[in-house]
């Protein structure tokens, strides 16, 4: 469905400054895949999408989207894709239903079919009561739902969504996903989306592409990425203030690595957290080490990003919510 080769894109900001927004992205996406693109602000996600959707030309590299070259056959590409950009697609002076009808007629639905499709989508994204409202009078999340509805009007075989769920409340996020997944099942739609919600990428996408500084730094299923790059982590504390005897026990657990002993607290990566913890507790009882608390942390995609780059995706927030974690060397911001 998508075959991008060494795409780059520079933006000349001023005579002395050029931004290398995308620095060589190669990506193959097969029909029917659901791919989430993750990365911090400014990583180049939107720029990559804008190249793949024919909005801007690559500085170098080539891309074939839906069987057509994005530079030489942009009109053909546009006919086969849908795109929900990061901004608001609806005109502010327009009414909600009108924008959906217009979108339908753009893609060749006759008036009746367009109206019917608009009604379906209004219903699916919980916008029916707002149908005659002016777009400028919608809340941010309502506007976002309208954007997505417009992108879905024609049931494209390839759909690009740039942060579709940003600003939606949990109920509406669930709604949105239900609808996207159903459309995908019914039309064998290929979906490429960006998101900053880790849980979303984790639970919905079969494939996660991590982008940083304009390059792909990881590309696999969420489960594999987490197992390979982050792994389970255990955090155990002892009663008293010396955890070193406990740390020696932790070291003997299967797959234990990165064992850090810090006062009365030990943390480490282990192969299988839920299995390792009881084993450790048994060993501690036998060795007469007084364990006070024990926790297992299963990795998130944020841990994956941290492992890859040494930075957390959650800016300004400590990755495990524990202030002591900040002392471990890998937490130091790059």
């Amino acid at each position: 469905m998508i075959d991008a080769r060494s795409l780059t894109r520079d933006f000349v900001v001023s005579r002395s400054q050029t931004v290398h927004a995308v620095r060589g992205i190669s990506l193959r996406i097969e029909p029917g895949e659901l791919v989430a693109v993750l990365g911090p602000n400014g990583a180049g996600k939107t720029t990559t999408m804008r190249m793949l959707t024919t909005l801007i030309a690559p500085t170098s590299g080539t891309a074939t989207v839906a069987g057509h070259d994005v530079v030489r056959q942009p009109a053909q590409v546009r006919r086969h894709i849908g795109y929900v950009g990061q901004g608001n697609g609806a005109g502010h002076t327009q009414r909600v239903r009108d924008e959906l009808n217009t979108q339908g007629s753009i893609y060749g639905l006759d008036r009746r079919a367009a109206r019917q499709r608009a009604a379906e989508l209004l219903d699916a994204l919980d916008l029916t009561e707002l149908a005659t409202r002016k777009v400028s009078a919608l809340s941010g999340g309502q506007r976002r739902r309208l954007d997505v509805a417009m992108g879905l009007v024609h049931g494209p075989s390839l759909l690009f969504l740039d942060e579709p769920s940003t600003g939606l409340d949990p109920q509406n996020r669930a709604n949105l996903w239900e609808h996207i997944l159903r459309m995908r099942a019914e039309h064998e739609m290929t979906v490429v989306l960006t998101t900053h919600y880790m849980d979303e990428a984790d639970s919905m996408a079969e494939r996660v592409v991590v982008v940083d500084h304009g390059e792909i730094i990881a590309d696999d299923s969420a489960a594999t990425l987490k197992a390979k790059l982050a792994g389970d982590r255990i955090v155990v504390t002892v009663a008293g203030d010396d955890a070193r005897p406990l740390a020696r026990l932790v070291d003997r657990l299967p797959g234990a690595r990165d064992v850090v002993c810090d006062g009365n607290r030990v943390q480490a990566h282990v192969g299988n957290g839920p299995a390792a913890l009881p084993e450790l507790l048994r060993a501690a009882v036998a060795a007469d080490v007084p364990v006070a608390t024990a926790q297992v942390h299963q990795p998130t995609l944020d841990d994956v990003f941290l492992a890859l780059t040494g930075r957390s995706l959650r800016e300004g927030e400590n990755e495990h919510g524990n202030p002591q974690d900040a002392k471990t060397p890998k937490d130091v911001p790059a």
Partner: protein
Amino acid sequence: MSTVSVTAPSQIRTAGRTGPLGLFRDIGIVMTRELRPLLHDPFSVIFGMVQPLVFLGLFGPLLVGSLGGQAGTALGNGGVWQWFVPAILVMTALFGTSTTGASLLFEFQTGAHERMLVTPLSRPSLLIGRALKEMVPLAGQAVIIVLVMIPFGFRLHLAGALVGLALLAVFGIGLGALSYALAIAVRKQDWMFWVVQQTLIFPLMLLSGMLLPLETGPGWMRAAAQLNPLAYLVDAERALFAGRIGTATVLWGWVAALVTAAVGLAVGVRAMARSAD
């Protein structure tokens, strides 16, 4: 809210996409979309009329006072309103259509334009549809002004007025297209739009003989006016609203309007093709 039968996307267009038929269809879609807000809120036509109405209300009476006695000389026979109202219609076209690019500028900011650029709509249709739409508010404004002025003694020659309206519409399409082209050109520094628009609009207006007869101005002004399409338009509208349809003045008015429309659309379509970056 969850049981939805999704329309088969198989009916999504493949036929009639390219060629002139596809272009006309696309223009129709864009134009309809642009006209909808006007339809829902007809009073918004008043918006582009503020300046012309101010001139009509506050400058017109001064003209009557100072030039009224000269009727039949500089102004031709028929009195001040007969001379001033057609010019006010051109002023309406000038102010209304030269500001229309601001709406596109806003769509650049929100992302609405980007969304349109990803659809199969042809690039030229995105401009032509918008420019053609300018006819509608313009015609509405012209009709309002004429109707308002009839009680004040403005005499209407219907045939001439209709031709005058058509002439105004053609000019409005051209100027609207230029306004959109300007919006596209300055989209990265949007404040420039108003700088350029304001800088151009007043010289154009004063050098058209719209407010005061140019015959009494210095020679260089009259020479400059000869290069101003607006001057030909104003003269043509005055002739038409006096009922003199088949005259050379009117012909020159059409030339000016058609050239403006052709240049505007050509420049605008080129700009639109490069508007994604």
